[in-house]
């Protein structure tokens, strides 16, 4: 089950739910008998203030160098010691002869009312801080404190109606994997704290506390503001992958050599990134990649459970393209099916999903739906350097139908006066041997191609790499694959077409020299691989790469090809990441 809220703090977390139940505080009015009793009540109030101050200062100290956290705690401390409020509470006790709890809650009610009508939403959000401090003071006065969080016996996702800022500040990132709340907004101190502590959070979910049971498994997607309750295996797999990549980001930026990728002999080489989610653009830019060589769009299926929505597509394409400007963004249309999740697609289980209903085969079967994506890409194309790429094109008539559909969409946009880039480049992925064999017939229809080495390898060698019994036969260095890459590049260049590689081979350090040697125009790799691939490019000369590529075409086995490259780079790049099979090379 999917819930949508406000993405408050970036990150992905997966874990069991821990429901935080909050008792309503009782602070009934009690009338005091004498002025003397009132003075004792005032003293009790002052003691509570000083106890809470002590608690907040302890939390502030525990925040260490989390700057925003300390600032927020200091703000809460100023609220706690506000002379105007405290004088008012004291005069309510003295003049009204009422108990401190009642005086605090009525005084704060007045303050919060004043806040809630403020025009500035940022100031309105501070009501939560007033409530937080007030609650702590009243808890001290009553002598009950929230113990619930102490019952957290394993790392969990906190589920609550709302979290107070000081409570959030006390959360331990290792123990609380994420939190989701019914209430809350983007600029509340609670969400700011979550961000500075690096705890993923989704807030403003309205009624999620009523829908979740203890120990339910939750996926918290703090990037999109989604919470998935008791996810399917596919959703889990997908999000685990996204989460792992997220954690690596910071470390990557540290390791990345600044500037463009340059070969040892000083030739700049186009190194782009494959992305899956829009927020990855930030990392891609920090790593100084030359563009997005593959923007996978399958995740859009997941976020639009109510069916295709042009606005969702458009906004995301637009945002990514604008953030990347002036660098190119190659958007690949839906590549559902195969091993990719099919959320929202009512396809049956197939005996051979990789040979089945997938990618443009589905798109051409549902032209209305597919047009929504095409229209959104075209509309976004005026705002950025966007190129469109169709996956899994195996038949030329298929390509013609795709281009006809694209023309139809273009005509529709023209007739309605909607701008799009008339010069937007259109390309295909080359990922089946069939496409390679008839590439000379295909090239006149397209502006560029990008080689998808994963599918090309598995279709060429007839190996399902997901099947452990045959996975060792899967080898992108197999002569059949290398020879096809050589053929593709030669053919493309003879027709002045651009050819990139966006399969995982492009991110294999040992493949990098070969691919440069074959003459591809671009390598596009997962953002996490950019630092290593960039380093690899830096230790290879174009001449040596060319020699290795030529030599590799007459080598009998993939392993021997890897050995060839390995012996060249090992002295120059000793910390090179090796494949699990490569121990045999050393």
């Amino acid at each position: 089950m999917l819930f949508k809220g406000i993405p408050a703090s970036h990150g992905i977390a997966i874990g069991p739910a821990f429901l935080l139940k909050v008792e309503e505080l009782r602070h009934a009015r009690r009338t005091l008998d004498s002025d003397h009793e009132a003075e004792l009540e005032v003293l009790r109030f002052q003691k509570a203030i000083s106890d809470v101050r002590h608690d907040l200062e302890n939390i502030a100290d525990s925040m260490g160098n989390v700057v925003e956290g300390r600032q927020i705690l200091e703000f809460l401390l100023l609220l706690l010691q506000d002379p105007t409020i405290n004088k008012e509470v004291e005069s309510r006790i003295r003049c009204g002869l009422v108990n401190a709890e009642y005086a605090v809650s009525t005084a704060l009610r007045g303050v919060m009312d004043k806040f809630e009508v403020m025009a500035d939403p940022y100031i309105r959000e501070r009501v939560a801080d007033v409530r937080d401090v007030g609650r702590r003071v009243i808890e001290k006065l009553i002598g009950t404190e929230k113990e619930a969080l102490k019952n957290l016996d394993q790392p969990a996702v906190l589920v609550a109606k709302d979290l107070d800022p000081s409570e959030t500040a006390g959360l331990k990132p290792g123990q609380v994997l994420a939190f989701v709340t019914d209430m809350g907004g983007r600029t509340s101190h609670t969400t700011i704290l979550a961000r500075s502590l690096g705890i993923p959070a989704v807030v403003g979910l309205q009624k999620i506390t009523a829908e979740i049971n203890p120990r339910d498994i939750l996926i918290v997607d703090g990037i999109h503001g989604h919470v998935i309750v008791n996810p399917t295996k596919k959703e889990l797999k997908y999000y685990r992958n996204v989460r792992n990549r997220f954690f690596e980001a910071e470390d990557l930026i540290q390791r990345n050599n600044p500037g463009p990728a340059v070969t040892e002999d000083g030739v700049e080489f186009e190194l782009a990134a494959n992305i899956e989610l829009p927020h990855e653009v930030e990392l891609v830019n920090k790593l100084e990649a030359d563009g997005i060589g593959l923007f996978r769009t399958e995740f859009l299926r997941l976020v639009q459970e109510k069916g295709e929505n042009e606005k969702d597509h458009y906004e995301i394409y637009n945002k990514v393209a604008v953030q990347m400007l002036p660098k190119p963004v190659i958007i690949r249309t839906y590549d559902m099916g195969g091993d990719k999740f099919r959320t929202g697609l009512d396809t049956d289980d197939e005996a051979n999903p990789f040979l089945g209903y997938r990618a443009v085969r589905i798109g051409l079967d549902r032209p209305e739906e597919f047009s929504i994506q095409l229209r959104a890409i075209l509309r976004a194309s005026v705002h950025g350097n966007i190129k469109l790429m169709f996956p899994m094109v195996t038949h030329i008539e298929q390509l013609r139908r795709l281009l006809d559909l694209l023309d139809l969409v273009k005509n529709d946009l023209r007739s309605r006066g909607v701008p799009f880039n008339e010069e937007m480049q259109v390309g295909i992925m080359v990922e089946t041997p069939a496409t390679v064999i008839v590439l000379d017939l295909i090239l006149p229809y397209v502006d560029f191609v990008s080689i998808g080495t994963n599918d090309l390898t598995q279709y060429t060698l007839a190996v399902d790499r997901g099947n452990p019994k045959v996975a060792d036969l899967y080898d992108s260095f197999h002569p059949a694959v290398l020879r096809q890459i050589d053929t593709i590049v030669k053919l493309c260049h003879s027709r002045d077409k651009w050819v990139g590689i966006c399969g995982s081979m492009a991110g294999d350090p040992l493949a990098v020299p070969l691919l440069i040697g074959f003459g591809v125009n671009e390598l596009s790799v997962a953002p996490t691989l950019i630092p290593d691939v960039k380093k690899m490019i830096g230790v290879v000369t174009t001449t040596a790469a060319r020699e290795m590529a030529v030599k590799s075409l007459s080598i009998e086995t993939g392993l021997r090809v890897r050995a060839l490259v390995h012996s060249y780079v090992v002295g120059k790049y000793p910390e090179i990441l090796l494949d699990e099979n490569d121990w045999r090379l050393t």
Partner: protein
Amino acid sequence: MVELVVTVPNKLGIHARPAAMIVRAAVEFDSEIWLESPADKVNAKSIMGVMTLAASGGTSVTVSAAGDDETTAVEAVADVIKSGFGEEMI
């Protein structure tokens, strides 16, 4: 009693963080210190007060103080406001 009129120079005006900076400066002094906008007059040592003043960028506010250290108090609080709180100016 000393008074000084200053203009709130930053774009966002006196929101939570600037309010905290003003209060932290004000509590250093023994004098009573006030902030006055065309709409309201508040205790400069009260975070609630300073925030509810909600002085937007460009507003004129009067800083006043009464007490033994009133002159330095007014100058110190006015300086914090004039600094723009380290934020983007109008």
